[in-house]
């Protein structure tokens, strides 16, 4: 490929010869490009091509005496430096670079090299790893602000002039879209255009920065960084609740939380002294990663994956570094080692987590531990009151408990005759035989339970035959227990530890008779997995059976089955119980025990005692001879079954606790970081594999960067403080570079995702450093920096393009004109809702469900609670897009078309494409059609009475500009044609205006509305509307 000289040279020259006469020469800015271009080919890092043994890229080498006896560089002495001699010699044999390379060093370059050597020939490391120092602001005529001085200095060097300021309508539209992500209203535009005061623009900027929509707009990008979503990702991709964290981000931007605190709270808010709720919520940043709940995974492997995700996300987001490579080996380009990587890893290694979905269910979703219940002020007050009541009830119990021995002693003598107590308690059902129908073994345990083992048949039936109890039976209690021999040490036999009981059948067989099936009227359980409630065992229509979240919960469970008709005592009759597991393959119960309640027991209780027989035996032992354990059991039985002041206190406590937990269950939760009491050891992992630990590492920041600040604790909090320490060369540079990208389309260093040594050398390195220094000087004030940039002349330039500009600078890196680029998908949709008057401006809260084509969610997962998408009715359809529910494996399809990432991993930069699929969405998606109708209605209702007035209003609303006569003619012609067409096709008109859930305005003729609707669609799809310019 042949590059045309003007383009080629101009970009190279930008990085050259920037040092003014008075300024000290800088190696990275001034010298490295010369050496790199003219010398390194033969005197650089490649030892295979090195000539004369001379190496100029390493200072120590360049200062050594060479093969010829001369020294290439003698610091402070350009005259003695062979480099200078060889580039200035008149000898055609000696001149460097050799003539055949056609790379002669220019006079200006020679002078620079001379000055550099005279000043000591100091080398610099990679520019982004050098400390941030504010450079002197150049004096440039006409530049009002430092930003402009730096930009215009470069323009002057290239012989380009800046563009004039954009017209006011363009300005207000540009800055409004940039700062709040919504278009200005026609009223805003007209007021701003009419305001001729010199402070008008600044007042506008201040108003926008103070608006609540600012925080929403800024948060949107941060959600990409944080890989925020409403689902857990992977195969099932069930739901989670992280919106309280998302709302924290919005608040933080709106409150202008300084970036250092914004950082510290998200990395380590939980470790701050007396951390407030908000500071803990902030740590959700590092819990936004996916969590795998796929069956059969190894928890530790995924715990490691999650931590690696945190290291990578944190380093992309704050440091602009790509550390992924170091997971497996030392970095090939950057000075980071594998040990550095795992030392950072160690900071995130102590969270109380398992690596898989825990505290939630892979299918029904929820948050995995650790998580926080989030309260508003009002909720907090109520919570405190309920807690106080529970505490008081506990205290009452403690007091009443003191009488326990006395109460028991008084009650004991009555025990033998206490028929009611006996009847209301569960009694162990002793079987005559217990077998598995399909070949599992069921072995009796010491506690009377039966443990399943051996083969785990696909759909087993446990056959439990017993003699009819002497008191008959009215109900049965099924207790299920965890056991170490069971998968996952849980309660079920499926490899994930779960079971699903599909039926609990009760038969009575009278002597000589056939088994007769009994009706179970009611079932209840102390816990049911969502979607597998106990009721499903009785009522086949209501579910598939009873399950207990075996993969995540390993507590003993009980279920009670009450017969419709109690069974009277009958000698010789048999009770045949059948526990069926026919809902899902291999989900059989692992260990269980059965009890019965007497026929006349009255109201049986799920939590009733099961140990009456034992208690009677204990009571028969003389008090002095009872073991402490026996005493305890007697007391426990008494408390649970015998009316007394203590029992009343116990019941009051149970009620208070229940009220507390019931209320707590209504509170939203959000996942947070929380350190485990005992830190885990961290290791370098060979090839990055979780089961190949090598050398042990401790928490440490990368060796090549400045150390942690003095006094910083060696934990996440210290890491956070290190990120925002003034010595950290990256954090401020990364942030200002991305802020610049937000407003100008490209960063000052274009690779905003990576400032490592592979990064582009910035076109305006001084400006980047000046901004970074200013950001820190301002106290990390994000709003101040936004204001500083948008107030610049550079930002306010017109974006019209001249031939010279296209030829010289097609991507507008030099900024001789204003920036112009397509809006993000979120802004495109939000703008449409705003233009159509549909936008619901509510801030925060749970994610919402706008329109989505049928089936999108179900295409990616077969299980899980994020299936069968149903759009909200009402407000949820019209909220800003950052509130749209985000399922990672099936992300909102329109956003995907507009270059949004899937949020599976941290993404700090989106591409900006322009595709036919986007055009289809804008033309045909119901959101945009409904919004067009909204705009059409506003044109008719607010625009005026003539088509011209209405078009003018619609155009102003959509573009912030007055309609020019030529465009008016085009629009008017189209409108008239479609007015005629829809008048002749009223059915089509009705169909068109009926799109979407909102009703078309009354009092407007339907064909007219339809015609305006198509015109509004044209307006909303204009290039100048989907572009911010």
């Amino acid at each position, binding site marked *: 490929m042949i590059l045309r000289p003007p383009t080629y040279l101009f970009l190279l020259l930008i990085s050259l010869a920037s040092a003014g006469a008075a300024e000290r020469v800088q190696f990275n800015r001034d010298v490295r490009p010369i050496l790199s271009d003219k010398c390194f080919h033969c005197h650089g890092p490649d030892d295979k091509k090195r000539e004369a043994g001379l190496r100029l890229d390493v200072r120590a080498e360049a200062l050594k005496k060479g093969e010829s006896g001369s020294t290439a560089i003698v610091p402070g002495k350009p005259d003695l430096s062979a480099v200078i001699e060889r580039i200035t010699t008149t000898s055609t044999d000696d001149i460097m670079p050799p003539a055949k390379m056609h790379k002669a060093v220019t006079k200006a370059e020679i002078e620079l090299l001379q000055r550099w050597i005279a000043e000591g020939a100091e080398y610099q490391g990679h520019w982004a790893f050098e400390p941030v120092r504010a450079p002197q602001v150049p004096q440039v005529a006409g530049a009002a602000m430092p930003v402009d001085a730096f930009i215009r200095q470069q323009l002057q060097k290239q012989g380009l002039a800046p563009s004039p300021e954009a017209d006011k309508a363009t300005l207000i539209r540009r800055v409004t879209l940039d700062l709040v992500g919504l278009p200005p209203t026609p009223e805003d535009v007209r007021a701003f255009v009419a305001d001729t005061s010199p402070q008008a623009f600044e007042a506008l900027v201040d108003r926008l920065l103070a608006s609540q929509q600012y925080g929403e707009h800024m948060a949107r990008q941060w959600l990409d960084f944080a890989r925020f979503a409403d689902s857990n990702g992977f195969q099932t991709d069930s739901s989670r609740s992280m919106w309280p964290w998302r709302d924290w981000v919005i608040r933080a931007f709106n409150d202008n939380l300084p970036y250092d605190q914004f950082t510290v709270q998200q990395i380590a808010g939980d470790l701050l002294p007396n951390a407030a709720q908000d500071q803990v919520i902030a740590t959700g940043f590092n819990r936004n990663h996916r969590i795998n709940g796929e069956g059969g995974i190894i928890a530790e492997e995924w715990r490691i994956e999650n931590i690696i995700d945190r290291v990578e996300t944190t380093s992309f987001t704050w440091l602009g570094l790509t550390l992924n490579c170091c997971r497996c080996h030392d970095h090939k380009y950057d000075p980071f080692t594998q040990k550095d990587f795992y030392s950072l890893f160690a900071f995130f290694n102590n969270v109380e987590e398992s690596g898989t979905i825990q505290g939630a269910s892979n299918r029904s979703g929820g948050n995995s531990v650790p998580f926080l219940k989030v309260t508003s002020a009002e909720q907090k007050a109520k919570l405190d009151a309920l807690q106080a009541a529970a505490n008081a009830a506990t205290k009452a119990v403690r007091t009443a408990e003191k009488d326990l021995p006395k109460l028991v002693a008084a009650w004991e003598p009555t025990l033998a005759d206490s028929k009611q107590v006996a009847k209301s308690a569960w009694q162990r059902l002793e079987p005559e035989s217990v077998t598995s129908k399909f070949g599992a073994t069921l072995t009796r345990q010491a506690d009377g339970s039966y443990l399943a083992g051996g083969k785990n048949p696909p759909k087993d039936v446990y056959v439990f035959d017993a003699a009819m109890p002497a008191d008959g039976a009215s109900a049965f209690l099924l207790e299920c227990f965890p056991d170490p021999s069971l998968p996952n040490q849980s309660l079920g036999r499926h490899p994930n530890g779960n079971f699903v009981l599909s039926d609990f059948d009760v038969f009575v067989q009278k002597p000589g008779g056939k088994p007769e099936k009994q009706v179970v009227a009611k079932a209840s359980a102390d816990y049911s997995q969502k979607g597998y409630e106990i009721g499903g065992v009785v009522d086949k229509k209501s579910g598939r059976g009873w399950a207990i979240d075996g993969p995540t919960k390993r507590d003993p469970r009980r279920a009670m089955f009450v017969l419709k008709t109690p069974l009277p005592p009958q000698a010789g009759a048999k009770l045949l119980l059948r526990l069926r597991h026919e809902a899902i393959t291999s989900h059989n119960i692992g260990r269980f025990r059965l009890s019965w309640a007497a026929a006349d027991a009255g109201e049986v209780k799920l939590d009733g005692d099961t140990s009456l027989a034992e208690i009677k035996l204990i009571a028969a032992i003389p008090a002095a001879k009872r073991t402490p354990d026996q005493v305890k059991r007697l007391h426990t039985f008494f408390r649970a079954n015998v009316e007394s002041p203590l029992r009343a206190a116990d019941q009051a406590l149970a009620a208070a606790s229940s009220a507390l937990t019931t209320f707590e269950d209504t509170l939203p939760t959000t996942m947070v970081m929380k350190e485990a009491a005992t830190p885990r050891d961290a290791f370098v992992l060979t090839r990055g594999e979780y089961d190949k630990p090598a050398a042990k590492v401790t928490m440490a920041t990368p060796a090549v960067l400045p150390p942690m600040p003095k006094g910083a604790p060696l934990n996440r909090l210290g890491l956070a403080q290190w990120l925002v320490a003034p010595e950290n060369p990256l954090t401020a540079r990364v942030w200002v570079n991305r802020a610049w990208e937000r407003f100008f389309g490209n960063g000052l260093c274009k690779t905003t995702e990576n400032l490592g040594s*592979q990064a582009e050398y910035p076109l305006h390195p001084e400006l980047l450093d000046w901004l970074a220094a200013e950001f820190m000087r301002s106290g990390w004030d994000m709003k101040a920096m936004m204001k500083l940039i948008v107030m610049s002349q550079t930002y306010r330039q017109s974006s019209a393009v001249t031939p010279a500009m296209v030829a010289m600078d097609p991507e507008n890196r030099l900024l001789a004109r204003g920036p112009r680029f397509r809006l993000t998908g979120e802004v495109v949709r939000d703008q449409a809702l705003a233009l159509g008057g549909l936008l619901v401006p509510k801030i925060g809260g749970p994610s919402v469900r706008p329109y989505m084509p049928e089936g999108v969610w179900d295409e990616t997962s077969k299980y899980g609670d994020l299936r069968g998408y149903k759009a909200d009715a009402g407000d949820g359809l019209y909220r800003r897009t950052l509130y749209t529910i985000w399922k990672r494996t099936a992300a909102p399809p329109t956003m995907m078309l507009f270059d949004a990432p899937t949020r599976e991993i941290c993404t700090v930069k989106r591409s900006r494409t322009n595709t036919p699929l986007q055009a289809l969405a804008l033309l045909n998606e119901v959101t945009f059609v409904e919004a067009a109708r909204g705009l059409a209605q506003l044109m008719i209702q607010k625009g005026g009475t003539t088509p011209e007035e209405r078009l003018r209003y619609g155009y102003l609303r959509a573009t912030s500009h007055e309609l020019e006569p030529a465009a008016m003619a085009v629009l008017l012609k189209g409108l008239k044609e479609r007015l005629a067409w829809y008048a002749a096709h009223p059915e089509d008109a009705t169909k068109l205006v009926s799109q979407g859930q909102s009703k078309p305005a009354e009092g407007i003729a339907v064909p007219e509305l339809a015609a305006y609707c198509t015109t509004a669609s044209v307006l909303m799809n204009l290039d100048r509307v989907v572009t911010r310019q």
Partner: protein
Amino acid sequence: MPHPAILHGRDGQSDRFGGVIANSLLMIRRNLQAELRQEYARHLSRRWFFKDCGVGLASIAAMDLLGQGAQAAPAPISPLAQKRPQYPAKAKRVIYLFMGGAPSHLELFDNKPELSKWDGKLPPPELLQGYRAAFINPNSTLLGPKYKFSRHGQSGAEISELLPHTASVADDLTIVRSMKTDAFNHAPAQILMSTGSQIFGRPSFGAWTLYGLGTENQDVPGYVVMQSGAKGPSGGLSNFGCGFLPTIYQGVPFRSAGEPVLYLTNPEGVSDATQRDTLDVLKTLNEERLATVGDPEIAARINSFELAYRMQKTAPELMDISREPQHILDMYGAKPGEASFANNCLLARRLIEGGVRFVQLFHEAWDHHGGLTKGLKEQCAQTDQPCAALVRDLKQRGLLEDTIVIWGGEFGRTPMVQGGNDGRDHHPNCFSMWFAGGGMKPGLTLGGSDEFGFNVTEDPVHVHDLHATLLHLLGFDHTKLAVKFQGLNMRLTGVHGELVDKLLV
């Protein structure tokens, strides 16, 4: 003009250099030069829009903005324009039949008569050393193959009785019985198979293909994805994502129900004529804008609306299988109006014929932890005939020569039993795939495994090796099809992958 991929390609020397400073010096220079070239390419692509996109009078005014040399411009570069590969290629197109959930190689392509003798016995302990299984206790008993095999065609390929149709095209197939992968859970293994990495965020094989070759028909997406079976792929959108490549290269899901492409149909009450009118007004106004502002992006936007309009016509026609003659429908077992794998296979052929570069069918239905015998029989009944029909149909149309057909899942299944006596667990060490056309050697059965079908013993083909080989057939050196991202040269094969010569014609 060299291929753009080479412009970004790695130099090969950079790895050898020592010293961070040295590296950064060189890289800065290289970045700058690559950047310059990229700028220039983009510049030219814009020029192409002016020249070739018919943007009307305004565009003539805009052309003047670009200054001299426009006439002498080299070949146009649109991001999706057809591109020449790095060297002459055997294959131009790909149809990937992704059997999600992972079919059992032991019942379909890898005949293990010895395994029957071990049925119900524990495997020898040395087999399981260091082995990890997803669900089962690895120390479970072995399960003999549930179906019989016989030899087919001139090549004598061993194929299961479950696949009589596939067996009938045995001589056109290249069967690999020695596939290996690194992952044994569905989502990561699918992502590895689709993108060359278990790490999310990398471009898919289809996206790389489109990036490298562009597309032949600008009126339809160049990379189309369809699905059948119980659900979409476990790995989700990332299976056909573009990673860090521009989103223009990601797979576009065509849907079997509703509109074939999202938002393809006009809103109700908007006729084709009205849509055209609307677009004409829009175009006129945008052209005026282009004349005023001069930003070439406006020309690109005008163009994308015009492409969208054409796609509204083309895509439904391509997706309408009722246009096929009855004997072709019968050959596939396709029924217009139904959502099925058979219909998707026929659609794949239609799309390929219509100039689509890469078609990927996900049929996620093979995860037989239990109910293996019945499940396999059902799935084979659904897929065997259409797969064979696709190969035969492509062949009779002369398309098989330069179209690669790929059949396979994300891993294999254990010889050990799971779920009573009729299931198999996930197994990464050994599995089977087959290929047809595009320069794959027909009639070849490559590789072998031990008597249990547990480990590969002969001619192992890792996923990375497969990718290297497929890219080779498409005309690319897998080490050179690279894109710079986050300071690194990213490739489909990462730092792995060896070309498998034995598979090539």
